């Protein structure tokens, strides 16, 4: 055993060494997301800022693509992190896993450089293959799509084959099927059609079924592992909860897809199906809050990693409010007619992605740092009373809530002025955008964005320093009797 308090890869198993690489790229892209978000937000206030150099469309594309990719890296890293411990077996294709990591990372770098330097192409299919597919969230050119599919397939193989050779737990079963769905659904977004209704029909399969179904189940698996790890909750309890969450999540989420099929040319029966099932979508998220908070309370919050536990609780609430409440708020067609395609969606998107996914990946970062430094102490009585992680937690969460509320205020103005009064025309759109209430919202969004950025810098600083030189080792969370 190496000296505690020093980052030493001898403290990690093979999968965890690979996970650290995934996490490093993830947090780098998280930084890119924040930076490009700030620039795009600033363009609402100063339209000439970088006009013709890095236009809003470019900044916004990098902002949301960095989001998707850093979260994907966070998930793949988390899966590699827990794989050997969970299966009690060495990863079968670790070399291949490492190779694919470098290939994927090289591909991501090229894609971002092309986004920034080439930006747009002529109206030909070759542009979609080489530069930009022009479809929100899945802008990555087709060649990169193929790379992403191959990469996810390799991770799927590693997960399935390692569990098959080792211990096949309940978490394993859910994870293997979820990885398969993650791979399969992405294929639905990999074709061109001129018919925009069909285009958006399948496009939503990727966006919704990834984000609101397979990703949610992915974090449920990570949560199950995390609670066993830091609180020592019994496996039988977390796995039973996991099945309940899968049933509720897929039971509401798969047909909840219908809430995206109100206005794209699709038949009217989607009003009832989408409205009903998406109204059910918050239920599994409530279940997850109950689960996490109950377990923490039952253990009197005595846990082996305070930052991780704090971010897991932030995840439970963020997921419920961001994905659940903010989504439900405008999901019924009677309301959605006035909110679809306004800042309401941006408000929901921000709180949901952060609350549901950023939080739990950050929780995994802290778990990784702890082990990397040799299972050091990360409970109470940290140097400086752990001010860095606490301030990072506070600033990131407050910054995000502030941005969310600001955009919601601007969204109200849009629904009222652009939609209800002015009739959704170009004039109506700009009447709302120029209204002081709208622009105030945009100013507050930018200010809270700066607060969020400060929190991010603090988070990175903390992750690099927490546990450094710590001589105490953790007291493992033990199973309650």
């Amino acid at each position, binding site marked *: 055993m190496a000296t505690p308090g020093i980052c030493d890869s001898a403290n990690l198993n093979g999968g965890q060494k690979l996970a650290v690489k995934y996490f490093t790229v993830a947090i780098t892209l998280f930084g890119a997301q924040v930076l490009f978000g700030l620039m795009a937000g600033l*363009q*609402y206030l100063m*339209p000439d800022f970088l006009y*013709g150099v890095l*236009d*809003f*469309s470019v900044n*916004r594309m990098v902002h949301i693509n960095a989001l998707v990719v850093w979260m994907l890296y966070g998930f793949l890293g988390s899966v590699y992190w827990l794989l050997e411990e969970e299966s009690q077996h060495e990863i079968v294709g670790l070399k291949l896993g490492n190779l694919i990591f470098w290939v994927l990372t090289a591909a991501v770098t090229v894609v971002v450089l092309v986004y920034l330097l080439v930006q*747009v*192409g002529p*109206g030909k*299919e070759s*542009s*979609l293959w080489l530069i*930009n*597919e*022009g479809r*929100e969230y899945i802008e990555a050119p087709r060649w990169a799509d193929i790379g992403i599919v191959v990469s996810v397939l390799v991770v799927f193989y590693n997960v399935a084959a390692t569990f098959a050779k080792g211990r096949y737990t*309940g978490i394993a079963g859910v994870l293997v099927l979820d990885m398969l769905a993650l791979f399969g659904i992405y294929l639905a977004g990999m074709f*061109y059609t*001129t*018919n*925009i*209704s*069909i285009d958006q*029909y399948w496009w939503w399969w990727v966006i919704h079924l990834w984000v609101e179904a397979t990703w949610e189940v992915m974090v449920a698996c990570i949560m199950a592992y995390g609670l066993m790890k830091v609180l020592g909750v019994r496996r039988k309890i977390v*796995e*039973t909860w996991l*099945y*309940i969450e*899968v*049933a509720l999540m*897929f*039971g509401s989420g*798969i*047909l909840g897809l*219908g809430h995206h099929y*109100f*206005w*794209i*040319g*699709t*038949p009217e*029966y*989607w009003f009832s*199906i989408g409205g009903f099932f998406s109204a059910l979508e918050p239920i599994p998220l409530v279940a997850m809050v109950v689960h996490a908070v109950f377990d923490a309370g039952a253990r009197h919050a005595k846990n082996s990693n305070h930052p991780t536990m704090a971010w897991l609780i932030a995840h439970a609430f963020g997921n419920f409010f961001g994905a659940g409440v903010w989504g439900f708020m405008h999901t019924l067609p009677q309301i959605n*007619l006035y909110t*679809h*395609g306004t800042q309401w*969606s941006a408000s929901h998107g921000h709180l949901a992605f952060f609350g549901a996914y950023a939080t739990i990946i950050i929780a995994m970062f802290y778990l990784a740092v702890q082990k990397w430094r040799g299972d050091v102490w990360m409970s109470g009585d940290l140097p400086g009373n752990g001010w860095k992680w606490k301030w990072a937690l506070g600033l990131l969460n407050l910054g995000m809530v502030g941005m969310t509320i600001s955009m919601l205020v601007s969204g109200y103005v849009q629904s009222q002025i652009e*939609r209800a009064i002015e*009739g*959704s*025309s*170009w*004039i*109506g759109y*700009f009447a709302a*955008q*120029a209204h002081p209430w709208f622009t105030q919202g945009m100013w507050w969004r930018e200010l809270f964005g700066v607060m969020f950025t400060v929190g991010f810098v603090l988070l990175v600083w903390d992750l690099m320093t927490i546990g450094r030189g710590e001589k105490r080792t953790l007291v493992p969370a033990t199973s309650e009797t």
Partner: protein
Amino acid sequence: MATNQWWASESFWRKTAIWVTGGSFVVLMLLTMDTISQISVGTTRVPAYSVINHRIEYKFDEQRRVQVPVIGVKEPLFGKELNEEEAEALVKLGKLTTQAKNCMNCHTLLGNGAYYAPDLTKSWLDQYWGTSEIREVQMVEFIKDPSDKLHNSMGRRMPKLGITDEEARGVVAFLKWMSSIDTNGFPYNFKSIEQEN
């Protein structure tokens, strides 16, 4: 707490999870097959590309209580009537251009995309273009180089994206065709350009 209740058992919830997931997916597949057949090009919801040869209006439907597209008299785009293949080729060029130029990261199409610029669903019918006589020329010129055209009082402008004349005509054809899609009344309360003559 008793843990041997059926409702608290692991196996009960595992089976429930499998059946609920499988069942939902089967229902989604059946609905998908039905929906795809209703939104294929050439249906009442999504008209054939040659609809660009006609006037398109967006009128209130008393029965459905929302506005719906109405296909009117012959009014060929750019004054030239196209057959089905020619119309499809032109709309396809337009759709490819909207993707290659990343329109969706400022605008929304059918309400989906980014929120920095107006929704394009019914942009063909927008009053901004003045009158229906000068609309086509206005749109082509605007798309080719919007940087010096009037936008709004805020200084927010569309950049010049290197769109050729042919591509701009394709985009206009695509926008005209898109305005004929039955979107269940979205956008609501839309005020159209004057098209009577």
